[in-house]
């Protein structure tokens, strides 16, 4: 419904925000792109170097595979978690949501620190395993792929559970009952009615988790081995800090392109608006 507005169209109010983003968001991206094109070996020298470098390619592999793994784990755990919550009594559902929400609100570093504490050689997990007689020597739990994935799943699970739970909540329980009244076994009713209806939320959450994990820097930096298994994000920071800004920028552009490509491909399956609202909702 349009109100009778005066000549001052509120559209102009967007100008400050847009200008701000142009200077502090768009320009930095462009600046990065131009930096990436400055090298001693011609315009695409940095990119050539990236392609030639086995370390970079390995990092790309690590980034993609661990992100996919984390996303898969989040999907399995997150779907079960959300589904259990949706079918529980209200106070249990609230509790379950709280368990996922409150840690998510806590500083990333604090939580990584907490994981480090638990996973270290003298940490509680190793202690427990030794005390139970399952192992005799402490396991190398930290600075491994295991700890990276564990860290990522811990941080990203809320971002999947939230939009998924919201979507599941909106599925009327009558639909599943209707399916059963028409002769479907409970598992069939779930498979043919509930599951498809929960897909949008699941896909939106999964996309958010995957895209976020691609760009991860802190988690692999603190929980990974900083040697052979590094994420692209870590390399970006490393090379920029080492004064090889061009190369670092090029890797950053690669990461950016990877992210945009993923979103573009996924936009066929998922409404991007849902993903963004999920990320805002997941924040609390």
């Amino acid at each position, binding site marked *: 419904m349009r109100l009778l507005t005066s000549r001052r169209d509120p559209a102009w109010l967007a100008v400050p*925000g847009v200008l*701000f983003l142009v*200077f502090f968001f768009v320009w930095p991206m462009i600046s*990065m792109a131009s930096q990436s094109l400055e090298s001693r070996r011609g315009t695409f020298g940095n990119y050539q170097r990236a392609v030639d470098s086995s370390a970079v390619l390995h990092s790309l592999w690590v980034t993609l595979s661990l992100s996919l793994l984390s996303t898969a784990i989040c999907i399995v755990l997150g779907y079960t978690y959300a589904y259990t919550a949706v079918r529980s009594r209200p106070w249990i559902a609230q509790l379950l949501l709280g368990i996922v929400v409150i840690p998510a609100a806590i*500083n990333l570093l604090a939580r990584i620190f907490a994981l480090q504490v638990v996973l270290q050689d003298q940490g509680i997990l190793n202690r427990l395993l030794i005390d139970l007689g399952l192992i005799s020597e402490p396991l190398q739990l930290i600075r491994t792929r295991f700890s990276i994935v564990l860290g990522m799943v811990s941080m990203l699970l809320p971002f999947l559970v939230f939009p998924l739970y919201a979507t599941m909540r909106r599925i009327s329980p009558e639909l599943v009952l209707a399916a059963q009244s028409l002769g479907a076994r409970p598992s069939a009713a779930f498979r043919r009615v509930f599951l498809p209806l929960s897909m949008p939320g699941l896909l939106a959450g999964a996309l958010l988790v995957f895209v976020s994990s691609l*760009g991860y820097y802190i988690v692999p930096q603190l929980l990974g081995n900083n040697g052979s298994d590094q994420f692209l994000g870590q390399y970006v920071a490393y090379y920029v800090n080492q004064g090889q800004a061009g190369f670092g920028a090029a890797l950053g552009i690669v990461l*950016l392109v990877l992210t945009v490509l993923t979103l573009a491909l996924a936009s066929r399956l998922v409404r991007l608006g849902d993903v963004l609202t999920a990320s805002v909702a997941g924040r609390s």
Partner: protein
Amino acid sequence: MTPTRRRMVVGPLVCAVVTVVLVAPIVVAVILSFTAGNNLSFPPDGLSLRWYRAIFTSSVWTTRIPVSIQVGLSTALLATALGALCAVAITRGSFRGKGLVTALLMAPLVVPVVVLATGEFFVMSDGWTVGGFTFGGDLIGTRLGLTLAHTVLALPYPTLLIATALRQVDPDLELAAMSLGAGAFSRFRRIVLPLVAPSVLAGAMFAFLTSWDEVVMASFLSSGRVSTVPVQILNELQFALNPTAAAISSLLMLVAILLVTLLTVARRLVRLRQRRAFSSSSSSSSSSRPPTTLGPVLT
């Protein structure tokens, strides 16, 4: 029916595992922050507040905390102001680039922070170059630089929250105010503003939290003198685990939980206002306007 019984066990089991994985580390870390000993072995050797005291006496921490607070508050202010303006423009204005502008406003949420931080680093140290003319720059290690960079990350939150709230204000309310003699400014002040105020507050809190917790961008843009709390923690965590980090982590957790509680209260207020806005239009009748969802703002 074994499948169902299986499902009845799997569900709670998974929930238990997830709970442990998410909550146990936090609990352990908090307990260890009170350790009297010098390391982080569990169980702690006695309890004491020495590490908390260490924070407040150490000059490193006492310089970082004010910076974090200042940057956080100014980010909240800037992001909420810009966000509110944009929200009004998106919901009330009509212009052809609306989808594009909305996408631009939301883009910082999906771009990898490392990439953005690198870009900010370049722009803040070298400035903006148009043709042969350069302006700006030299913003590394300044509160202003940190604020501006954090605002980019924080902007989507108040924008989205306020836009949603604006969409849910019954347009008839403004028409009614008009018919009763209220001009544009009066309508905004007496009708629109009170109804979206909780969302404005929530947006500001989100913005503050975003800045308060942010580490990647801050680490790129800080200097030895001007740095934030998360950056300091990052430094400490890279090299050694010590109980100071545990203590400061616990404090951060406390702040976070406090703010989350405030946010929940604000959210409840919003929902209450929404329910009033709807039920004032239809409590005894069957027809009612469907509440708009967050989706339509962006799609």
